[in-house]
Structures are given as C-alpha cells and as structure tokens.
C-alpha cells in the first residue's frame, strides 16, 4: 500500500512539470523564399517555412522561432512590400507585418473579417480581398492601417492588376470577376465566368486567364465541370472558355511563367498549357500518383517550379522542387497544407 501512495505522489509531481520551450532563432538567408502553410480552420496551426535557395534546405516554423508565438489561424498569402512582409491570416482576421530578413514581427493590421489575398496597387496602398465581407479592404502599407473599403457586394478572392484596373475573382458561391478602377476606388464592371473562379493571371498579350473550380456536389449555386476562361483585359470580353472533362476533380492554382506565355495549373495532376493553345492539354506535365497537389508556383528568377502536396490536409505537407522542364530536383517536408510562396 505504501508503494501505491508513493507512485501516486510521484505521479502528481510528474503532472506539475512543464516542458521547456526549446526554440532557436531561424536562419533566414537573403536568397530564398517563404512558404505559407495554411493549417486547419480554427485549429490555429498555420506556420511559415523558409527555403534557402543556396543550400536548398527548408526550415519550418520560422515565425514561431522568431517571435515565440504562433502565426494564427489559416495563413493565406504573403507579399513583400517596401521590404516588409505582409501576411494575411484568414480566420484570425488580421495581417501581420514582418521583417523579411528575420521573420520578426513588426506590426498588426487588425479589424478585418476574413482576409484572403493581398495586392499592392501603388506606392502606398494595397488591396486585401475577403472571404465573407462584401468589401475589399484598402490598407496603407507604410502606416500599417486600414484606410478604406471598396464595396463589391460579394466575397472576393485572388486579384491581379493591369494598368489602373484590378481584376478580382469572386470565388465563394459566385461566378464573377469584378473590375475595380484604381483611381475611382470602386467597382466599374464585372464579367461572368464559370462557377467559383479561384485564381487569375495575366499573359504577355494582355489577356486575363481565370480558373474556375466549378463548385461541388450540393453547392447552393450549383456544380459544374472546372473551366478556364480567357478574357481581353481591355474590353472585358470573354475570348474563349475551356471546360475540363471530369466533374469529380476541382481545378486549382493557375499560374503563369515568368515570360507570361505558359500557364500551369493543378487538375489532380499538374498541366502546362501555352497561351496560344486552343484546347486543353491532354497529357499531364507532372503526375500526382499518390500526392494531393495543392498549389503550384513559378519562381520569378530561377527556372524552378514549386509544387505542394497537402497529403490528407492534417499531416505535414511536402514541397517538391522541379526544374521548369519537369525533372524533380528535390523534395522537402513543410507545415500543414503548404499553400503560398513569397520570394524574399
């Protein structure tokens, strides 16, 4: 009996122990890029990884290591503006501003609803799209403040700028592209495309390309095959649309190469398409096999294609480094749902 009590007593002491926080400052080189790991909605397990291009190594959890705090709930996008990193944290309703060379926290832009993507529009302003708000937030990138809102009436997602026009996809339960005039700071036109446009890019011929995922079964606004839309940026006229063959896959992550003449996107596998093609490619560029490809990114300076595998969305994801011609150069463990990239 004596032993039992001592075991219980020692047990109580054991429970009183706390783990030491073993964190070191991250190593952020000047030649590399950030990987934004989205994490799971409401679980607060987003993270930031850094890829050193010289050493071709990845360091995970750099935000936590630099600041001894988690990055928040569902990190979405990162842009470097005036040598400061702006990271949108969707379900935390804020933007963190960090020092790109150290990942150290600089400031918070709060009081947002559900920020998604950030797009610098001039020297001092950036637009922030929002999943739930019918407004785009306008932030001052020097003062780190929200200074205004542009009413869209609907949810907004990815954005691209052409001259003074900002093309904004309205992804959630919608099929529109809104055009905002930068000078007037208001929506001046809209274009109807396929269901749920999720990504947008601009080619060398001044055409806008939009990828629509088509919704899902049970979606209140319907379910259709994923599609790609080619739109004249000047006239806002649809030039061509391409529908994918299988309704059971949702297409995502449309990106353009650095010479703006080739599109890459994920449709289970990765596909590559010339902007001059009149049909969708039949052959995949990179096969998924067992991977669950989530996003693709073309390095702006090197002939690299970066591809993420979100696996089952609750495990740590993988980042694949490919040469732009399609040969695998490396494979790296990242955080949960690696989503976006940002060149240092």
């Amino acid at each position, binding site marked *: *009996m*004596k032993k*039992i*009590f001592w075991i*219980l*007593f020692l*047990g*109580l*002491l*054991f*429970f*009183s*122990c*706390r*783990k030491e926080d073993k964190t070191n400052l991250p190593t952020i080189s000047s030649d590399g890029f950030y990987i934004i790991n989205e994490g*799971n909605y*409401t*679980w*607060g*397990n987003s993270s930031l990884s850094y890829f050193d291009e010289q050493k071709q190594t990845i360091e995970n959890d750099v935000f936590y290591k630099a*600041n001894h*705090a*988690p990055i*928040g*709930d569902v990190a979405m996008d990162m842009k470097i503006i005036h040598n400061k990193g702006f990271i949108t*944290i969707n*379900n*935390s*309703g*804020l933007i*963190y501003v960090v020092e790109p060379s150290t990942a150290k*926290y600089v400031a*918070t832009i*709060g*009081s*947002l*609803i*559900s920020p998604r993507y950030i797009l610098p529009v001039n020297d001092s302003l950036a637009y922030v799209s929002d999943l*739930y*708000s019918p*407004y785009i937030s306008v932030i001052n990138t020097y003062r780190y403040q929200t200074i205004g*809102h542009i009413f869209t009436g609907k949810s907004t997602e990815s954005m691209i700028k052409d001259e003074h026009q900002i093309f904004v996809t309205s992804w959630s*339960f919608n099929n529109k592209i809104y055009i905002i005039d930068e000078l007037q700071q208001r929506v001046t036109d809209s274009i109807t495309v396929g269901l749920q446009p999720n990504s947008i890019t601009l080619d060398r011929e001044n055409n806008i390309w939009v990828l629509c*995922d088509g919704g*899902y*079964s*049970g*979606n*209140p606004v319907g379910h259709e095959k994923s599609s790609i839309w080619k739109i004249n940026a000047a006239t806002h006229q649809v030039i061509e649309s391409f529908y994918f063959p299988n309704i059971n*896959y*949702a297409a995502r992550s449309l990106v353009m190469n650095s010479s703006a003449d080739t599109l890459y996107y994920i449709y289970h596998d990765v596909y590559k398409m010339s902007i001059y093609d009149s049909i969708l490619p039949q052959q995949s560029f990179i096969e998924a096999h*067992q991977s*669950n490809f989530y996003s693709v990114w073309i390095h702006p300076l090197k002939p690299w294609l970066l591809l993420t595998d979100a*696996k*089952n*969305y*609750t*495990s*740590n994801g993988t980042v694949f480094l490919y040469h732009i011609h399609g040969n695998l150069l490396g494979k790296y463990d990242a955080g*949960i749902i690696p989503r976006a990239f940002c060149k240092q």
Partner: protein
Amino acid sequence: MKYIITFILLLFIYALYSQDTIRLKEVVVEDKFEHHLQIYYTDTLRQHYYQNQTLGNFMAYEPGITLKSEGSGGIQGISIRGTQNSHSQINWYGLPVNSSLNGQTDYSLLTVNDNSSIHILYGINSLQYENGGIGGIITLQSLSIDELENKTTAMVNYQSLKNQFYSISNTFKIKNSAITNTLSYSSGKNYFRFMNEALLPQKRSTNEALFSTINYFNQWLWKNKKNKISLFTNIFTNDRDIPPLMTSYYMSEHKETQADKGFRSILLFQHDFKKIQFKQLYGFSFSYMDYQLYHSIQNTDVTIINSNANEHIVYIATEATYSFTNRLRSQTKINWQQDLGQYQNLKEGTGFYKTRNQFSLNQSLIQNWNNQFKQSVIIHIYNYQKDISCLPALISTYFITPHISISHSIGINQHIPSLNDMFFLPGGNAELKPEQAFQTELTFKFNKNEHFVAQLNPYYQQIKNWIMWTPSSFGYWQATNIREIQLYGYTANITFKFNINPSIELYSNINYTYSKAKGNDGYYTILHNPYIPTHQINFTTQVQWKKLQWYIESQGFSTRYTMTYIDDYYLLPYQIWNTDISYTLGKKCTWHFTFGLKNIFNVSYQSIIWRPMPGRHIDVSIKITLP
C-alpha cells in the same frame, strides 16, 4: 506550494489508512442478482457536491473520462477511454437523448441533482442497454420513493466570473407517490482576464461570454404492491455567446451565438407478475438549436453563418424480466426509435430533413452459477438501413473471496452514423457503414469491509470504420469510414472513508487513467489520439468535522496532442486544484454556507486549444433546506 500540499495530503491519507474504519455508505456493493452487471456507480457524495452543476463537470472526475469544455456556460463534450463524444450515450431515466443530428450530447445542458443516481457502463458493458455506446453509456436513474425525502431546497450561488445561479427544488411525498419539481436559472458573463499568447502583440485580453439557462425538471413517482408508474419531464432553454478563439481576438467585431431549447419526457409503467417483471416506456424528446455568426464592418453586420436545427426522438420500449429459477434470469427488451432531424443553413439556402426508424431487440440471460460465479450472455439485434446486425457480448464475474472479484467482459459493439454524418451538405455520406468495435476488459476489484474499494480495469478495443470528417479537395470536409484504431489502457480507482474520531469523517477518491491509441487513417499512421492524455489523475477528498466540511479536488493531465499525425502541436501538462469550505447551521431547517476557491494556483490552461480557461476565482453559495 502545491507540492507541499500534495505531500502533506497524501501523508495524511496514508496515516489515516492504518486507523480503524467505519462503513462506507457511498460505495454501493453489487446485488447478488442485478439487472445489469459491471455497472460503475458514481460517487453519491461527490454528486451532492456537484448538485446543480453540469453533468460534464461532474463526469470529468470519473476514471477514463476526459472533458472538453469551453468554460462556464460553454459547450461540453466528453471522451470515454479515448473514444469520441458521439461514442458516449446518455440514457436519461430510460430515454436515449443523444442528438440524432450529430450523435453527441452537450453535457452543459444536463444538470446533476440529488434525486437520481448516475451510473456508467463502460465499453462493451453498455450493450446491456443499447448498441452504440462504444465509449460507454451514462445512465441517470431515479431514486426510489423510499429513498426520497420531503424537503424544499433553495440555493443561490455566485462566481467571481460574474456568473450567478439560483435554484429551488421541492420533493413532496404522499403515501405511495412522490413529486419533485426543480427550477433553476443561471446567467453570467464568464468574465476573466487572460494573457493572449496566440497573437502579436501579446497582451492581456478579456474573455466575456454571456449565457443564461433555465432548466425545469419534474418527476412523479407512484407505486403500489405490484405496479409502479413514473413520469419524468425536463424543459430547458440555453442562450450563449461563444467568445472568439484566442487566435481571432483582433478580428472585426465578432458575435457568435447559440440558442438551445428542448423538451424531453418519459413515462414508465412497471408491473410485477409472479415470475415476470414487465416494463413499458414511452419517451419523447424535442430540441431546437439556432446558431449564428456575425461580424461588423463599417457598422454593417456581415452574416457568415445563420443556421438552425431541430430534431425529435420518439422512443417506445417494452422490457420483460423472467426468472426461470433462483439462479437463471432472462431479460428481453424490444424498442423502436424514430429520429427526425432537420438542418437549415439560412444564409446559403441549404439543408436537409430526414427521418430514420430504428428497431432493436436485446436479449440477455443472467446465470448465477453459484455464489462465486455469475455470467450474462447478451445478444443485441438491430437494424441499420436495410441491414440487420447481431451483436454478442459475454460478461463474467468471479468472486475469489467475498472481498476480491475478477470480471471479464467481451463483445462486439456498433455505432451507427448520425444524420449529419450521412446527409449534411456538403460532406455527408449516405453510404457510411456503422463503426464496429471489438471490446474486451478486465476488472479486478477489492473491497475491505465496504470502507475501502480499489479497482483496476485494463481495457482493449479495436474499432473499424471509425467515421472521420476529413478535408476534401473541394474545400469542404466530408465523412468517411477511414479510421482503424486500437484503444487500450487501464483505469485504477481507490475510494475510502474513515472516521478519525466520532466527529471527524474523511472521504477520499483517487483515480488514474492510462490511455494509448494506435492505428491508421488509410495511408496515415495515427501518432496521437487528439486531446486524450496518456496520463490523467483525479483526486477528491472531503473532511467533515461536525458541521464544517472541507472539500478539495485536483485534476492533472499529461501532454495532450491536438494533431493526429504530428508531434508539433500540443497543450502542456497541467494540474489544477479547487477547494471548498462549507458550514451548516440549524437542524431541521438548515442553512449551508459554502466558500470555494477554484484553480487555487492560478494555472493558465486550455481544455480546447485556443479557448482560454479561467484562472483563480471565487465561488460562494448559500443553500437553505426546509423539511
């Protein structure tokens, strides 16, 4: 400081153990011929202490049970032996009350009272009631008329979290009948300050979540020589604000609310023939939930979620117990249950409305082979969609001596998907199979003169087709039968009560749970069972000296991982201590004053990740009892 208190307390208890003892009333010793075997009786003294508190708070200190709580007024769910909340069922005076929509019970909506006893049938032992309680079935049962007393009780309670609680209860007995009415009201803000370490800049933030609850309970019991009739009714409303996650504190103005309303009632007839005891039950429950999430921007409300759900359960059961001989008894139960669930997402215009009928037949044979050995064989047959399943179980108990027994339970259990699992849009999956569990456990029990009870329960269960909601490539979560898992471990429980001298009485309970999980979700290996600690220890002690009572309780958890496949995300181990001192004035009409200090050492902890829990706070109450 807490080490010193722990040490002194344990030495104190150890010293007392060597002293002579008196009868331990709170430990109920099993009958020679029970309706059900391997029942775990929760402690009546602690039940008294937790009177008018939530069932979740009360169950949290029972072995093998882990509570997930959002704090006072917030939603509560439990896990029994590492299973999910939906794997634990509540049998409310004979009526199954788990939600037909999500299969779960919100333990914050059920309150503990003095007029009932609370039992747990862990694991496969629950098949004696129903299928589906893979974790177990918690039963609330009425005390008999003879055990009830004529009394009126009024209670006022105030917490420094700006919460208050009022209740009035009356039990009235005339000849062969007894009526109990209890009305309680609680409201508050659950207000406390905490350091928000989830966001930068880190700063002290305020948790404020308004809630109000009204709960009315009525029981009417009548009996004569051969008949018993009981009617139980419960009406409740609960309105609560859900505070933002710690990771969302800088969001634009956040307003998340949930309103629950419900009614449940069960009518029970019992007639004793010569060799047959016959029972008929008619039960009905209805509940309605309204959930809304808004944000404000430029003084405009932005609706993010606006939904409501309503459901009802109709339950009819017939039970017959037949004694073939003094040593062999048969129990047969046939029941029909209709679940109706309706969910509406008003913002998106989606939803579903479904009705489901379930039939089951439960047949058990209980054989007392001799005074030392008894067994129960159970066959449970039920329908799911177009299939009929047959689930067997065997429970055996052997008394090595009158004080030492070994029990073994083994069998197969199944839990059917909830209506949400099958029909929720998006992500519901109408093709889901029932979750299937092979379960076995041992119980070693020792009791010494009924003053000391020690129990050790190793358990093992293998669950296939476990339903998980996993993210899909379309951006929503969907239900799949993906998980195959083995849950194993043991619980150890020691309860004792002594009279140090004629005026000082000491009661103590300590229980420990060791819990592990191993398995896979398709290609992915399960490293952790989220939120289930490997080690959990609960400790309660009450010392009574004349009219003064001192109560202390403590709960400790080892690391709780929050992700299944990754080591990086976890909640740190913690141990919290609560204490109460109370004094009773008067003899017939009594005034009971209590002063409590909760979370004595002001430990910062989270029960659910990014949901802060209160630090040290005060709880005072006055209870008046009239005969």
